[in-house]
Each structure stands twice: as structure tokens, then as C-alpha cells.
């Protein structure tokens, strides 16, 4: 077995040192009744080359973005992941280190997390970021938990335009967290601040998404204000890639900003592993879940970095901890840092502009083709909802036969939208790609 190093001679010496005659003897502490005596009934072992060939065969049965022109988004986006990210992910030390409990062994990864936290704070306009959460769904639940304990209130308001999957996860967590969930419907694709204001009364938090699940731009500042006025914490669920162009949640009064980090640095990989980010205003720093890296000095006064505020965490605080998180998504978050550093401030703006320009172009082009926008009077960022005149799932099936995945059939999540496609444009798409989409939709709609 190529992952194991003991020779027969090694084994003999070691057994002798232990004072047993066989490895079996070491397992005698397992009561007879619960010993597993037969061989595992599993697939046969493969050599490395055979593993690669099997996985190539499995991979070949997936319609990835290299073989299908895809306009899928709905929370996970096909942005270009630069090659510098490969450098980070292929450095064995970063790849094979674990949580930096021993800072003197891990200054590199600690500094990298500190840099990631700084980037997230800059983008969201917040004071503190953790080292990552599981994904864009669980960080929303984390935010609700912070709000519940910060306000002592139990009601949490979710905008109906918050990604459906995110809402589902918050609802799953709600009973344990002692939360009561209220949802606010949208009006013409966005949330009405007045409606939200009513719902926010006695609420711990209001969670909305910008750009929202239809791709529309919410009146975010008004929503945040409505929440604050009701004494509820405004929580914005945002897309990092949009924050070169769209205002930072911190700048319009949000208490907490969360989101799915995948757009920055992570490939699609069928949904994971990715990372969720969570950043907040200073006052919530001691309620933050997960790891936080802080700056300090060593015995010689030299700058260094450590895991800090660990009294929040399960390994110290146990049942009183702010969260039970141990393993997080650091490697994916560092990929995000690399991507964001590669873009820089101008690159981030340009990605946003390209996505927006292509989306506007696609809207116009598809409308020329006779299709109708669902929310014609809302501004959008990189994604929009459009009616295709027949069941969207059938349109998807027909378009895929032509090598194009035209978008997400959102009827799965929203009433009365069975004929709606959610179409996403990233900077990887081109004007020619939009042409192709228009042609195919013309054929199949």
C-alpha cells in the first residue's frame, strides 16, 4: 500500500517494543460482541493509474462548462479563476497544514487569513470578519444566531428574494436556535421597504440579498433603514464580485454582511467545497462564530499573528460557545484572497462592469427575440429572470440537446414561475455566446 511505510521488519520491532505478538492483540480492548470479523464488502482496490482512468470516465459523464455553453447561476457562478490560485492550492505546506493552533508553526497561514479578513472587511465595509464559514447558506444561519443573542429577540425576517437554499437552511436551524422565521414577499422583483418595516417589528434580524435571487438590485439602503428603525439587525447577503460597483453593506448601515464566497476564487465543483464569509460591526466581535486571526507580537516584539478571541469557541467555551464550528473552509477562502489580490480594485470594478454589460446586452437581445423580462423595471447586475413562454425545464432540456444550458428553471423555487429562466452572465461569456444563446432559445421557445 503506497500510503503506508512500515516494513515487516519495522512491524516486528514495534510489536516487540509494545510487548505484544500481533496487531490483533491491540484490538482486544474491543468487546468480542462488537468486533467486526469479516472483510469489508466494498469495491476492489485500484492502482493509481486505474483510479485516474475510472475518475476520468465518471467525469466524462458530466456536462461541465467546457463542453456546454452555460448560463447557470442562481448562487454559484462561472467566473474565471486565475492561475495564481493554483499556486496557493498547490503549495504543499498550505494544503496540508491544519488549523493554526500553534502559531509559531503557522505564521504563513495565519497571516494569509489575516489578509483575507482584511479584504472581506474592505469589501463589505465591516470591522471584523471570521476566517470563513461553511457556505453562503450556513453563514446566514450564523448571522441569525448572533442577532438572536445580541437582541434577545427570537423573530428573524427573511426576504422572499433571499436565495431559496439559504432560506431553507435558516429554517432548518431555526428550531434548535429558538428562532421564529417570517418571510416577506417581493413586489415586482424586490422587497418593499414599508412591507419590510412592518415585518421587522420585534425582529432580531432582517436578512435580505443584494443582488437578490432574481438578479434584481434591492433598495438595500432603505431595507437596512427599515430594519434598524424597528431595532432589528440588518443583515445583507452579498456577492463579493459585485462589491466593486455596488455599495458596501457597512456603508448603508448593515450590522452584518454574509455571503457565498465561491464567486471569488473557487471553481463550480458541483457545489463545493466553497466558503461562506461573515463580517460584522465591531460590537459583535465577541459573538462571532468560527476562527478569527489577530495581530500580536512575539517575545522579541516582532509582529506576528495568532488565533484570537478563542474564548468564543467550542474548545474553550464548550456549551456556552458562540458556535460549534471547528473545521472551516480556510483553503477555499485563501483561494478567494488570491483571486481578489489578482483582480485588485480596478479589476474588481472591471469584472462587475463586464458582467453587467453582458447581462444588459443579453436582456436586450432576448427581448428582441420576443422573450419577456419578468421584472422589466428593475435594475440587475449579472443575472436576470425571463419568461420563455413554456415550461422552463422543457426549454432547458431542449437547449441542452443543442449544447447550451440557458439558465436555471426557477419555477422550482417560486410559485407561478414555471416558465421563467434565470440567466447568468459572467465575464467568461462573450457577445458571441449571447448570440448563440439567443439562437438556441429562438429555436426551442
Amino acid at each position, binding site marked *: 500500500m503506497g500510503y503506508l*511505510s512500515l516494513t515487516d521488519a*519495522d512491524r516486528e520491532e514495534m510489536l516487540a517494543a509494545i*510487548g*505484544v505478538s500481533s496487531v490483533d492483540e491491540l484490538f482486544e*480492548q474491543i468487546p468480542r460482541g*462488537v*468486533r*467486526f470479523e469479516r472483510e469489508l464488502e*466494498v*469495491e476492489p482496490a485500484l492502482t493509481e493509474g486505474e483510479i485516474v482512468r475510472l475518475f476520468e470516465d465518471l467525469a466524462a*459523464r458530466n456536462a461541465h462548462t*467546457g463542453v456546454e455553453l452555460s448560463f447557470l447561476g442562481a448562487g454559484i457562478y462561472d467566473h474565471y479563476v*486565475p492561475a*495564481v490560485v493554483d499556486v496557493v492550492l498547490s503549495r504543499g*505546506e*498550505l494544503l496540508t497544514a*491544519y488549523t493554526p493552533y*500553534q*502559531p*509559531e508553526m503557522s*505564521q*504563513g497561514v495565519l*497571516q494569509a487569513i489575516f489578509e483575507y479578513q482584511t479584504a472581506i472587511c474592505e*469589501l463589505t465595509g465591516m470591522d471584523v*470578519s471570521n476566517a470563513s464559514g461553511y457556505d453562503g447558506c*450556513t453563514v446566514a444561519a450564523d448571522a441569525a444566531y448572533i442577532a438572536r443573542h445580541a437582541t434577545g429577540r427570537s423573530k428573524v425576517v427573511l426576504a422572499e428574494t433571499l436565495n431559496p437554499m439559504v432560506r431553507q437552511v435558516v429554517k*432548518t*436551524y431555526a*428550531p*434548535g436556535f429558538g428562532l421564529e422565521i417570517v418571510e416577506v414577499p417581493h413586489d415586482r422583483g424586490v422587497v418593499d421597504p414599508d412591507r419590510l418595516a412592518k415585518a421587522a417589528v420585534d425582529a432580531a434580524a432582517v436578512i435580505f440579498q443584494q443582488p437578490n435571487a432574481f438578479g434584481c438590485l434591492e433598495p438595500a439602503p432603505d431595507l437596512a433603514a427599515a430594519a434598524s428603525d424597528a431595532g432589528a439587525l440588518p443583515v445583507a447577503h452579498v456577492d463579493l464580485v459585485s*462589491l466593486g460597483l455596488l*455599495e*458596501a453593506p457597512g456603508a448603508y448601515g448593515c450590522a452584518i454582511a454574509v455571503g457565498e464566497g465561491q464567486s471569488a476564487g473557487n471553481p463550480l*465543483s*458541483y457545489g*463545493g*467545497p466553497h466558503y461562506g464569509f461573515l463580517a460584522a460591526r*465591531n460590537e459583535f466581535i465577541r459573538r462571532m462564530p468560527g476562527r478569527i486571526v489577530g495581530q*500580536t*507580537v512575539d517575545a522579541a516584539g*516582532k509582529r*506576528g499573528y*495568532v488565533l*484570537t478571541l478563542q474564548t468564543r469557541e467550542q*474548545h474553550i467555551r*464548550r456549551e456556552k*460557545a458562540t*458556535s*460549534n464550528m*471547528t*473545521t472551516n*473552509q*480556510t483553503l*477555499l477562502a485563501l483561494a478567494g484572497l488570491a483571486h481578489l489580490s489578482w*483582480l485588485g480594485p480596478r*479589476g*474588481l470594478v472591471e469584472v462587475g462592469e*463586464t458582467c453587467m454589460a453582458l447581462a444588459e446586452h443579453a436582456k436586450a437581445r432576448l427581448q428582441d427575440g420576443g422573450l419577456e423580462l419578468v421584472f422589466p423595471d428593475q435594475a440587475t447586475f449579472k443575472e436576470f429572470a425571463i419568461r420563455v413562454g413554456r415550461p422552463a425545464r422543457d426549454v432547458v432540456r431542449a437547449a*441542452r440537446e443543442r449544447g447550451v444550458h440557458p439558465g436555471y428553471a426557477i419555477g422550482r423555487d417560486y410559485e407561478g414561475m414555471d416558465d421563467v429562466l434565470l440567466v447568468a452572465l459572467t465575464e467568461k461569456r462573450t*457577445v458571441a455566446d449571447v448570440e448563440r444563446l439567443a439562437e438556441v432559445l429562438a429555436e426551442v421557445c
Partner: protein
Amino acid sequence: MELIFERSRQGRRAGRPPQPDLPVPEVPAELRRKRPPRLPEVAEPELVRHFTALADRTFGIDTGFYPLGSCTMKHNPRVNERVVALPGFRDLHPHQEDEGAQGALELCWRLQQWLTEIAGLPAVTLQPAAGSQGELTGLMLMRAYFADRGEGDRRDTIVTADTAHGTNPASVTLAGYRLEKVATDARGNLDLADLREKVTERTAGLMLTNPSTLGLFDEGIEEVASIFHSRGALLYYDGANLNAIVGRSRPGDMGFDIVHYNLHKTFSQPHGGGGPGGGPVAVRETLEPFLPSPTVVRDGDRFRLDFDRPRSIGRVRGFAGPFGVFVRAYAFMLAYGPALREMSDVAVLNANYLLARLRDAYELPYDRHCMHEFVLSARALKRDHGVSALDVAKRLMDFGIHPPTIYFPLVVPEALMIEPTETEPKERLDAFVDAMHRIAREAADAPELLREAPHHRPVRRLDEVGAAKRPVVRYDFGERPQTVEAEA
């Protein structure tokens, strides 16, 4: 070393996105960003050097021995990184129709087969993102199960061991349960007398790691199971220590009703400075209806995501779970095949060898063969020479060895929790033994050498207390550092 923000110079850049010849629409004024984010401005050459330098200041399994107890720091096979990068996996959108993701779904399904056989339980969800989330998921399943039986209100308590990892009690609280702790007996097993008292009609279930965080298999596990089951309660298995027993014993056979796996421990994932992970959960038939939605199911030769789960607790994470973690875990399993037991056998052999060679130099609180890890105490060094487990840990760094887990489990004072894993060769184990013996001698002869350690790392010992008192958690761009007041 400089922060990436300190390397930044206005006007530099690495990446440039395509800019199609199209008008750029205006963002509505009230939504437009006013102040640009101060992301670093660096060209590619310095960007690469920066991350290279960060890696050089990080110790990983690839660098050397990393016996961090409870974390199973085993070698990460490189072929796993190769297969996870296949475009068919890497560039597959999670909203792709099932017909367009048959290979991915089949891989998930095959992984489930392995997991059920290993745990001895029939149904699995791959959705949880890590062990901790697996725990929470498991407790939600208990809640749903008892609610379904009309016992939801009555059963409000979860029992855990005093040796339990911090995530266990934390999960109990987050799941809305009361916590009850049970003591450990002289042999390191659950104290059955104490247990009998604490299991009542209010008890929803037990959360247990077996082998325990002491690295000891609970010899009374059958009795423990019957105590809970006889009172209608359930048993939850924290799979963090599964590396000890694969192919040797199965949680399902021990009587556990719910099990989480830490794919990133037992089945080797790059730990990446803290993650990613994967925490699938397996259950008995009776609990299957409550598993998160969607599940991966097989119909004949087709595979699909099943969203039609009316009694499900719902979703705990996006999509079907951290797929890339599944790809690596499945590749890892295939490299062993039915001989996967070898993995646990060698993990246990390596641990017992270290135990045998270190028991005289350090205190061994529970005098038994261990499983895949064991816990020593530096209490004597503390008492006799004023040298703590922390000092021993810091001194180990000077020998190019990552310290073990320290001060855990809490039941052992000055604990040193040592887990070599199966992938270490004997030379590495021997080098560790030599270092530990030398450190024990130094504790007597030159204690300050330990107290001032490390001496040969990029930084000296770091001030963690100061860091927590006035937290600086982001770069201040030359302004006054960000601080908050210390806790009372």
C-alpha cells in the same frame, strides 16, 4: 514579513478581465459604491512570491511529523488532487440537471455504499460540511424523530462524556438541548453507575466518541447502548476517531443509531489551514425519513437527487454537499479497497509504539493499550521543574516537529494528546521519541530552554493574551489599529 497590502502600489495590477465592446450600464446612484475597496495592487510576479513566502512560513504534513491529536493528520495522496481537478468535476455547475451530472451522482452514490458498509448503518446523507455540522444534523434528526413520536417536549436532554470534544456540548446547545455530563471511570470508560443515574425519561440521547478522546475504546459500550435504548433514547457516534477502527468494529454494531464521519480526517483531505471538511451522517432505517433533502438515490442505472422528502428536517447546507471532498475521499478508499482495515491497524500500531516508548518519560494516566492515539500528562514536569505541557509543545518545534494537541481532553492535567496516524514511517516516530526524551531531560537540566522556546522558528513565542485583550483583526492601512475593549 510584509502583508500583501503593504506590497501594494497604486497603479499595479495582475489580472485584467475581458472588456467587451458594449456600453457599461450605470448602477443606480443610491446603490453605487462610493469609496473603492482597498484591495492590494500587485503584479503577478510579486503575488506569486508573496504566497510562496507565506507557504514557506507554514508547517504542513508535507514538511514533517504532525501528531496533532484528534485531528488525524495523515498524508494527503497526490492523485486525489489530480482527479478532483478533472474538468468534468471541477467545472460542473451544481444546478446542472441530473441527466447532465450522472458521473458526479454515481460517485456520490458509490461513496455512500462505502460509508454504510463501514458504519454498519443503512442510510447516509452527504450534505453536512464538517463533523461539527454532522453533530448538529444528528441532533436535529433526534429532535425530528422524537417529535414524530410525540416525545419531543419530554426529551430535552443530551448526555455527553466529560472527555467529549468541545464541539459536542456546543452542538447540544445550538440544537436547543440541555446538556448532561457523565464521568469517566478509572479505566477510561464511561462510568456506568453515573450513567445509569443520568439517563432518564428526559434523555433524548447520548453523544459519544469511541474510541474516546483518550484514545481508549469503551469496554462497556454494549451496556451503555442498552441503557439508552432500554429508555427509548438514541445513541450518536462522533466519528472523529473512526480512523482507529475501520474494518475492526462498526458503530452500527455497537448500537449507535446516528454516526457522523469526518471525511477530512479518516479519508484524507488537504486540511488547508483549517478546512475544507466533509461530515456525512449515517442512520438506522427508522431515522432515514428525516435525513436532509436532497439525498442521492439510484433508480436502476440512473442516479438522481431526491427532493421529495416530506418528513426531512430540511437542508443543512447548499446543494448535495462538498462534492470535491467526496471525490478525494472516494479516491482514497479505492486505493485500499477491502484492505482498508490496514489503515486502522497501522494507525493503532504506530500509536501503541509511541506509547510504549514514551510511557517512562511522561505520565500515562490510563495504563492500557491505546487505539489510534493516546494522552500523556506533563504534570510531573510541571510539579518538579515548573515546565508546562505548553513549554514541551513549543520546544518540540525546535526539532522540526509539530506539537501534539495540548490541554485536551480536560480530564487529564497538562495533557499531551498524540496521534501519529498510519502514514508515518518508523524513523519519524523514533525521531519524535528521541526529541520527547531529550525535552524531558532538558526540563530538569535547563528548564528555561523550554520556557523560552521556540528558538528556531520565524517568530519567538507569541503573545496570545495581548492579542485577545486588544484585538487587531484586520490591517489598518497605516491608520490607528482597530481595537475593542477587553472582556471583563
